[in-house]
């Protein structure tokens, strides 16, 4: 336990985490500090492409082969399953409508790439290694949860007799060819095809400065999270509680799955983090299109303002410490 605290403390004094806190502070003080939209979008493109490239290159240089399949399938199932648990809990504990509960659930089944990246930096700082193909999991876990969310919302429609079609083909395209998936998977394939040698040629841009870029990105996340929390009015205590215990449930499920499919301690930690994290890039856009009645004033503050900070500040070191203890 002393170890856990020491690890958590060391996580808190990394430049990236402190940049997040700085952004949060500036946001709460209503500073005029603002990262321009275009820069923020540019940063997320960079992060997703970089993480894809590294994952692919590192898979190419490993001798993983078909052995990664069970892990990938488990990741997809996890993303499908978590929304059902989340939905059940939300219906039990909050007054959210079915639609809103389904929308929130989709976010928690999917993943937050920045949370994931922060976790990889944390592991790296502790010299803990992990399986390269976890990055393929990130891409695979983005969308199944959206399908579950829509199925959950549809059940409700069915009761009302206004059952909407599950997927217009147009929407399927929008979800599958979503920018973040194209970048993650595309980067992964490029990294895999060009290998460590290819990665080396672009490492001074995509690898070495990565941690520094992450600082800037987390600074922006802090600003945005603070802004969302300040202007959010619809978050009841039970909703906030959900935003805090749901990641722990996710982490337990993710950790167990990682153990079951034979991941290393590092890999298991990352899968726990993925399961614990909630999307705020790909899923909100998909949900706005598919379930326009769902209130973005609920799902964004919850995933971005509550769960994201929780995971980054407390969750990651916690999951890592517990899993390290269990594996050792």
């Amino acid at each position: 336990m002393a170890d856990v605290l020491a690890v958590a403390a060391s996580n808190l004094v990394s430049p990236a985490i402190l940049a997040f806190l700085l952004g949060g502070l500036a946001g709460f003080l209503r500073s005029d500090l603002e990262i321009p939209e275009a820069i923020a979008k540019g940063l997320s493109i960079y992060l997703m492409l970089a993480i894809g490239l590294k994952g692919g290159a590192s898979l190419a240089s490993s001798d993983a082969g078909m052995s990664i399949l069970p892990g990938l399938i488990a990741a997809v199932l996890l993303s499908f399953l978590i929304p059902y648990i989340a939905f059940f809990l939300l219906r039990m504990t909050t007054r959210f409508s079915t639609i809103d509960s389904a929308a929130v659930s989709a976010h928690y089944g999917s993943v937050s790439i920045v949370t994931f990246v922060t976790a990889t930096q944390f592991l790296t700082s502790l010299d803990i290694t992990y399986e390269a193909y976890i990055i393929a999991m990130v891409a695979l876990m983005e969308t199944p949860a959206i399908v579950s969310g829509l199925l959950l919302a549809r059940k409700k429609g069915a009761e009302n007799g206004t059952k909407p079609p599950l997927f217009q083909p147009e929407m399927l395209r929008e979800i599958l060819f979503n920018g973040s998936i194209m970048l993650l998977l595309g980067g992964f394939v490029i990294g895999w095809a060009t290998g460590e040698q290819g990665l080396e040629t672009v490492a001074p841009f995509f690898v070495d400065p990565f941690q520094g870029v992450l600082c800037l990105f987390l600074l922006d996340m802090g600003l945005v999270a603070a802004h969302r929390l300040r202007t959010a009015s619809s978050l009841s205590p039970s909703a906030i509680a959900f935003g805090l215990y749901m990641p722990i449930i996710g982490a337990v499920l993710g950790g167990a799955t990682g153990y079951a499919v034979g991941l290393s301690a590092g890999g298991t930690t990352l899968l726990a983090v993925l399961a614990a994290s909630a999307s705020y890039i790909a899923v909100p856009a998909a949900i706005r299109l598919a379930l326009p009645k769902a209130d973005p004033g609920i799902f964004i503050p919850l995933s971005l303002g509550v769960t994201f900070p929780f995971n980054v500040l407390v969750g990651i070191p916690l999951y890592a410490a517990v899993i390290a203890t269990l594996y050792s």
Partner: protein
Amino acid sequence: MQMFTKKKIEVVVEAIYAPRVVEAAKNAGAKGYTVLPNLQGSGTHGDRRGSGLSGAFENVMVICVVDPSIASTVMTAIKEAIGDAIGVLYASDVEVLRDEHF
């Protein structure tokens, strides 16, 4: 200088719905449109400003100048395209020089 009266329809809508609005306007007979991206705003759905991460809080404005004869059709089509999405819609009279362009 002879001027012709047209209707200018302005729509503020969440960014991800812009393609649908534009499509609806075109199908209803609009010959052109202009999109003003990256807007902020506030209304019954609360504060909206881009988060840089997801388009979920970004607004855009679509401006569409059409012949008065189809104005109401275009407005209805846009209204349906918006559906339950977040947005507002209003129209006004403008004068143009080239009747056939709109």
